[in-house]
């Protein structure tokens, strides 16, 4: 083994050359503070930020003044939930509807908000990870202020019927937040068509730099600020802007928008090749997530009778980076809450591996991955005291 295969693009991505180039001037050449509008250097920084803002706005069919930069997808999620909650609590609104398969940035924020009197309904998902629109409708209360549903799931790749959810939210006059961190660049997002009021984004998932996030906030939305202080971001999010990071985010979105359809088509072919290859070559596997309503870069299988961390370590030895839904990899007690929510038993969930590909991956890489996985699973199964589904259920 010599080649390195990075197949964990849902965790983070390799920053694109063009992005690095675009950023490079904003360290020691155009280093002005964007708040310093009275000299050239400050104005240039400001212009750079506004250019990136425009790129994002265009990509989402939003207005420039509806785009805000944050430090991460997590901050955007926190802002959306806490901002809406704190702005509406004293209006007699104290209820949020979300799903059982959200990112922890949503789930832990909802938990935290309990101490301020916020109640949350967590929608179930079916075995493919889809929510039930009827359950959503039934969950709506007069006190419901926000529906927050992720566009696409980071673990199993399932894409929710966002437009339909948006319609329901709109009908009931409830704000609709979408965690779009995984969807950005992989699924068409149109905040108007999809009736989205708030959208979380993160640059490092689309080959931009780490530590920079974005948020769409529909104009007129009742939401408190999250970071208070200076007048940055039109007074809505304080803190000297990470100009170079914003520039990089803008460039990454620009590149993503340029070959959007081609990118998705190409990834989908590779993804399907990987899915079929694993299905056909390795027995006793379960595909997690939806067969078709899934991210073009996501392949997630459970390999029965073996455990995910061991697989990852062996993959790493073969130069392949991936991720797992096993509790062992996270140091937590239970395997992925997402896999469990789809009804997978603990034992099977422990043996799940997620591959998330990028445009840098080739057919050969896919075939190498299938082959490698076959060897690894064979090897670990030979070591395993569990040999069949009966054992698994004990």
């Amino acid at each position, binding site marked *: 083994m010599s080649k390195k295969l990075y197949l964990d693009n849902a965790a983070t991505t390799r920053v694109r050359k063009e992005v690095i180039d675009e950023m490079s001037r904003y360290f020691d050449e155009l280093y002005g503070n964007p708040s310093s509008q009275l000299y050239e250097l400050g104005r240039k920084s400001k212009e750079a930020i506004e250019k990136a803002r425009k790129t994002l706005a265009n990509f989402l069919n939003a207005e420039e003044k509806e785009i805000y930069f944050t430090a991460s997808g997590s901050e955007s999620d926190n802002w959306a939930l806490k901002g809406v909650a704190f702005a509406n609590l004293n209006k007699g609104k104290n209820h949020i509807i979300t799903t059982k398969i959200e990112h922890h940035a949503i789930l832990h924020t909802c938990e935290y908000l309990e101490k301020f009197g916020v109640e949350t309904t967590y929608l179930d998902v079916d075995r493919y990870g889809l929510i039930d629109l009827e359950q959503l409708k039934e969950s709506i209360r007069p006190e419901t202020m926000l529906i927050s549903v992720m566009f696409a799931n980071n673990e199993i790749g399932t894409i929710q019927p966002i437009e339909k959810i948006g319609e329901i939210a709109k009908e009931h006059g409830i704000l609709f937040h979408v965690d779009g961190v995984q969807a950005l660049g992989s699924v068409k997002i149109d905040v108007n068509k999809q009736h989205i009021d708030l959208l979380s984004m993160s640059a490092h998932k689309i080959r931009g730099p780490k530590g920079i996030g974005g948020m769409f906030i529909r104009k007129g939305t009742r939401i408190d600020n999250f970071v208070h202080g200076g007048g940055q971001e039109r007074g809505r999010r304080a803190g000297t802007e990470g100009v170079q990071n914003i520039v990089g985010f803008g460039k990454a979105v620009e590149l993503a928008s340029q070959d959007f359809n081609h990118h998705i088509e190409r990834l989908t072919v590779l993804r399907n090749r990987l899915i079929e290859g694993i299905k056909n070559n390795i027995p006793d596997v379960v595909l997690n997530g939806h067969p078709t309503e899934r991210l073009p870069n996501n392949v997630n299988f459970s390999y029965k009778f073996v455990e995910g961390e061991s697989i990852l370590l062996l993959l790493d030895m073969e130069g392949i980076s991936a991720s797992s839904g096993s509790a062992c990899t996270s140091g937590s007690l239970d395997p992925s809450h997402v896999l469990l929510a789809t009804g997978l*038993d*603990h034992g099977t969930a422990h043996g799940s591996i997620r591959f998330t590909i990028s445009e840098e991956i080739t057919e050969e890489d896919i075939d190498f991955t299938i082959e490698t996985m076959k060897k690894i699973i064979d090897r670990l199964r030979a070591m395993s005291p569990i040999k069949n589904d009966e054992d698994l259920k004990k």
Partner: protein
Amino acid sequence: MYSEIVMDHFRNPRNVGHMENADGVGQVGNPKCGDIMKIYLKIKDELIEDVKFETFGCGSAIASSSMATELIKGKSIHEAVELTNKAVIEALGGLPPVKVHCSVLAEQAVKSALYDYAQKTNKVIKGLENYKAEDDEIHCQQ
């Protein structure tokens, strides 16, 4: 995150596999917790002549099993029963805090196999008098 020794035992586990006609077999853990260890013992004149393990679990679970088998192989059953998880951790050059339970499991698997042997042969092994085979209750420890 893992020491060199852990990685070595994970990559090249010693004494891995199934054993026919074992004199003692012990299995602990469960799929729910993500760790199962099964230990097979071949015992002659109270000496552990051979030992094998099968493990479903993470890297440190496999390494802990492997190390545990190495530590008891060739020992008498009375020495083997004194194997502690601490000894396993030390021999492995340390384990991350969240993985300490793997070494506990290895200790338990050894004890369980020894107990099985004692039961089958009507022997009493000092230290196992009050041993209770783990019931299958789930108590995924950390």
